[in-house]
């Protein structure tokens, strides 16, 4: 078993990685600008959808139901897809999935594959594996193309190049597409991508996609997109391979009426994204005549096994929690060290890796709860973050000094007299550290607390003391 989440296992801690991001004012400016735009649009699209709470309730209920019966639904999907002419493969981990994809491409002697944005393939690090096998992956989503041409890493689930602004993209395109001249408007950049990719679309023999939804009753897949590159990839090549996480199942075609209403509004703030494609196996005379689905576990069954955090698998990858998160908005996505950034990344990345890596991510949050409020499938991310923090602590045990300190605190808090003595001590001890009523930096092991936050000064008088003095005044 080699569960892989991009390069997350080798990534530095969030605290360390975020330091670089916080110093990059251009990046922070780009991220703040983009997330401001998307938040305003999402808010508008959600406000006009009067049955939003009911849609969320249904979506979550459907996802919970699927997770309770996942095995049966996957078998139903497999049977229906196979009956419609598709071939279903199962992959325990990233390497197995990548090898399956490589074997299929090799069996057709193809040297390149056109790809529509799939986070799942970023998760399995498919592109490096393809390149090592002598196959060129061509990313066709505009943002993914920007990432690929720039040798960059995705920083957002929906808009992977969100950290890049127009001017940066224009410079990159001119260099990599060898253009003498290119306009400055977003329209010009989109047109350049169209020209660059058109011929590659028309000649490709193998396409690769993910799926937003896998429909159990019919064995169909659904891909949600905007540009038409997704339609190109799932329609034009002779061979299509779809890499799908096992949690993408919905029971029926009819369930799309819930999720398609939630996804676009949450992701881009549109009432509906320009294109949705639904297809089932192979259709004679229309589209790829060979179709493979690779069902990927890669740690998902481990997440499923923990009832307290299982809801993580309900995620439909809309990115709303990233856009709203005060931490993500400061650091951008790269600091998370995972292709899954933001609040959902903070709970998904460490769990997929069985809590063996990325253990700093559950702490990359202020627990403000904004992510829960915007989540279209009502994942209580703060609660799961706390649950995962407790797992990190239990897994390692807290450091000795912290345990001793906690013991002392427990002793002091359990008795009013002891607490008062402790407060007196602190009032004296804090003096050298207070400036304008705030403690900005504490010494020793306490420094960890004040590294990212200020602490208010302990007041001269406790509430108990004030209360006692007041009573003495009133009742002489």
């Amino acid at each position: 078993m080699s569960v892989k989440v991009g390069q997350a296992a080798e990534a530095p801690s969030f605290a360390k990685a975020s330091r670089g991001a916080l110093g990059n004012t251009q990046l922070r400016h780009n991220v703040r600008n983009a997330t401001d735009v998307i938040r305003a649009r999402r808010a508008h699209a959600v406000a006009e959808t009067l049955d939003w709470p009911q849609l969320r309730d249904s979506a979550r209920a459907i996802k919970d139901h699927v997770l309770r019966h996942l095995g049966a639904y996957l078998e139903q999907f497999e049977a229906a897809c196979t009956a419609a002419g598709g071939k279903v493969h199962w992959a325990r981990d990233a390497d197995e999935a990548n090898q399956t994809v490589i074997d299929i491409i090799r069996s057709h002697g193809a040297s390149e594959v056109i790809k529509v944005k799939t986070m799942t393939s970023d998760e399995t690090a498919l592109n490096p594996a393809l390149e090592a096998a002598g196959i060129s992956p061509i990313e066709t989503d505009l943002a993914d193309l920007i990432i690929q041409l720039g040798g960059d890493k995705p920083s957002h689930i929906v808009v992977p190049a969100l950290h890049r602004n127009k001017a940066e993209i224009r410079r990159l395109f001119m260099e990599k597409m060898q253009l003498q001249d290119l306009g400055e408007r977003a329209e010009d950049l989109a047109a350049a991508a169209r020209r660059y990719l058109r011929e590659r679309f028309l000649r490709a023999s193998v396409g690769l996609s993910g799926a937003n939804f896998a429909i159990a009753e019919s064995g169909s897949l659904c891909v949600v997109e905007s540009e038409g590159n997704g339609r190109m990839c799932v329609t034009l090549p002779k061979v299509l391979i779809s890499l799908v996480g096992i949690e993408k199942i919905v029971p029926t075609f009819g369930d799309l009426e819930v999720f398609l209403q939630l996804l676009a509004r949450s992701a881009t703030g549109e009432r509906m994204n320009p294109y949705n494609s639904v297809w089932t196996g192979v259709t004679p005379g229309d589209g790829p005549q060979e179709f493979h689905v690779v069902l990927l576990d890669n740690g998902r069954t481990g997440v499923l096994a923990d009832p307290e955090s299982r809801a993580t698998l309900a995620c439909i990858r809309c990115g709303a929690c990233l856009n709203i998160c005060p931490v993500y908005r400061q650091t951008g996505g790269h600091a998370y060290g995972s292709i899954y950034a933001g609040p959902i990344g903070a709970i998904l990345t460490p769990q997929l890796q069985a809590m063996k890596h990325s253990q700093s991510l559950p702490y990359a949050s202020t627990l403000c709860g904004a992510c829960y409020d915007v989540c279209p499938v009502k994942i209580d991310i703060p609660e799961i973050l706390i649950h995962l923090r407790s797992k990190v602590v239990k897994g390692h045990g807290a450091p000795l000094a912290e345990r001793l300190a906690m013991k002392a605190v427990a002793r002091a808090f359990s008795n009013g007299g002891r607490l008062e003595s402790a407060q007196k001590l602190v009032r004296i001890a804090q003096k050298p550290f207070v400036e304008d009523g705030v403690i900005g930096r504490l010494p020793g092991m306490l420094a960890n607390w004040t590294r990212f936050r200020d602490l208010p000064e302990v007041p001269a008088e406790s509430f108990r003391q004030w209360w006692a003095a007041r009573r003495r005044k009133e009742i002489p």
Partner: protein
Amino acid sequence: MSAAKLDARQEILERIHHAAGGAGDRAAEYAAIPREYRREGGMAPEARLELFAARLYEYGASVYRCTAAQIADAVAQALTQRRRTAIVVSHGVPASWLPDGFEFVEDNDLSYAALDQSNGVLTGCEAAVAFTGTIILRHGPGQPRRAVTLVPDYHLCVVRAQQIVETLPEAIRRVEEFRAAPLTTISGPSATSDIEMTRVKGVHGPRTLDVVLVL
């Protein structure tokens, strides 16, 4: 399928079984899922039609209204406006929709190159959603091929008033019987929000979408 692959399947299903169990009556549980969201609209037909047209305008599509007898005239008007002369006609388009004075090419398995060089494509649709300005295409025998509605740079779509419903759930029920066929939903022309999160028209799909609205 190799032995290793069979093992992967068994192993994943076993892991799922240990993790989630899967006990209980699946069908009954599914039927009990709460669905309190709007599953039907309440608009009068005229208002529904106006809403659909308004959404299309927002997407930058032109809308040509006509009666069933005037479809060919409306098609001519749209093509003249966009200066399109050589148009691919998808399966399922009746001859009565085609005006004189234009070159219409029937889609007899045209190559991608031929589609790429055409001036555009004319199709009908299966259903439409007013609230989101969405058109639903069904593909397969007797219907437009997916490539035909995708590769040409211009898409002219004929939508009949009775095909328009108010909400997505109503449309999903209308096309449910064709769920095994490929389906494409189209909400405005190809676009992207990838550059600074601003919706920009026209990437890989048809960059221009017009609709003939048959009253």
